[in-house]
């Protein structure tokens, strides 16, 4: 395996800086976010690299549980960022975290205890990357689905109220919005499953191949991950959308947008 030197990464980062300068010149308002994300990326990954090195040497379940909890809480917090009409902070955090917990952790446990089954099952070398990939991807999907749901409900509030006035239940009144939101959240994973191998080599598989794993082994892991992500995302979104939809209506099924942060 060819090792990367810090200079190799400096060369790659010059491309990001070039992009940031270009978008600054074109007034695209994206440079600041881009630079911040890039810096966060470096700091977080380096940190994780060192932490992983420590953890891999100790098969400690409690340490792993702590790390997993931190990962979950951060994902639960981030899930409501960058949304047009985000949920109020605590509601959003609670809903996002519980949807993520149930979907990602269920899939991670299934893969660790039944499918991959390393010894011990919580072996950090398997548990952390698997959980990380599941959390990251389901978070993405759930976040997209929630964004679509909140935005549609806000924009179509008059339609929803009209449907309620005609005697529809709240489930009927937001049925189309709900399925549209679930679909939106599922599009990325369905797309990447559909084009995998034809257009792009998925990231995990690429990494394994680069580090010398035989392609067929890498492919099998990639398929496993795809299926788990798709299932986790789907169930996670359904859960999140169901919980939000419930909170958007009061006990007499009146639309109540109080749980949304609406910038006036």
């Amino acid at each position, binding site marked *: 395996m060819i090792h990367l030197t810090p200079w190799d990464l400096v060369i790659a980062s010059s491309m990001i800086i070039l992009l940031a300068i270009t978008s600054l010149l074109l007034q695209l308002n994206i440079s600041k976010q881009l630079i911040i994300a890039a810096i966060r990326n470096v700091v977080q990954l380096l940190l994780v690299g060192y932490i992983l090195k420590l953890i891999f040497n100790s098969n400690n379940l409690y340490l792993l549980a702590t790390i997993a909890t931190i990962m979950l809480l951060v994902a639960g917090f981030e899930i409501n960022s960058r949304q047009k009409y985000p949920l109020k902070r605590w509601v959003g955090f609670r809903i996002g975290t519980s949807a993520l917990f149930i979907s990602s952790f269920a899939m991670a446990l299934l893969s660790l205890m039944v499918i991959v089954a390393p010894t011990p099952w919580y072996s950090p070398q398997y548990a952390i990357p698997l959980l990380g990939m599941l959390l990251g991807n389901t978070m993405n999907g759930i976040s997209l689905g929630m964004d679509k749901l909140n935005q549609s409900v806000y924009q179509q509030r008059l339609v929803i109220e009209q449907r309620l006035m005609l005697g529809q*239940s709240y489930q009927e009144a937001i049925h189309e919005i709900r399925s549209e939101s679930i679909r939106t959240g599922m599009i990325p994973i369905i797309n990447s499953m559909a084009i995998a191998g034809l257009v792009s080599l998925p990231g995990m598989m690429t990494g394994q191949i680069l580090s010398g794993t035989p392609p067929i082994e890498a492919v099998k892991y990639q398929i496993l991950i795809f299926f788990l992500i798709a299932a986790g995302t789907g169930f996670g979104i359904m859960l999140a959308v169901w919980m939000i939809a419930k909170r958007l209506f009061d006990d007499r099924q*009146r639309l109540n947008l109080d749980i949304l942060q609406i910038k006036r």
Partner: protein
Amino acid sequence: MSDLIINKLNLSSISPNFSQSFDFSIPSGTCMGLTGPSGIGKSVLLKALADMLPHQGEIFLGDIESQMIPPQQWRKKVALLPAESQWWFDMVGEHFQTFNEELFAHLGFKKEVLQWQISHLSSGEKQRLACIRVLMNEPEALLLDEPTANLDPHNRIQLEELIKDYQSEHQIPVVWISHDKEQLNRVCQQVLTLNNNHYKVNKISLEQEGAMI
């Protein structure tokens, strides 16, 4: 067949305009006009009657209080026709489960209307279709928010007649928001005038009252 009875209805949690609570009733088979300056909260009052807004106090349809039955059932019985109707599918027909030729014809529509695109409808057409849509639910009380605001004189009269016919045939109470005094004289037996912090109910005329019995 039931009166609509409003008992100590309090909406002060929604707007400071409503410091006083409401007590009035609309006998079955009659219409009460609702009038007052713009922005005073006529539509808010109507929405509350359909249990679309949180409120204190009681709203009875006959001996059923709004909180005694599921909200969907209440809103089917006490149907609100909003000032601006909303449509969510692409075609008119998708918003109707069944077709009632007589009802559509009364407001000047043939069966082809079901194939029309919502985006091509004029505001008047939408208003008439919304009126048909609400009547197809066979409500037991009607709350109308300026139902003829976008209509030409011919259609205005047609709609008034349609409502009057439905009202007397099914003996239901009707609340009708309007700024048009003449219209209120034509369709109502009493008028509730809403003002800042107070309201009053006036009978329209004995002659019409007598005619309703």
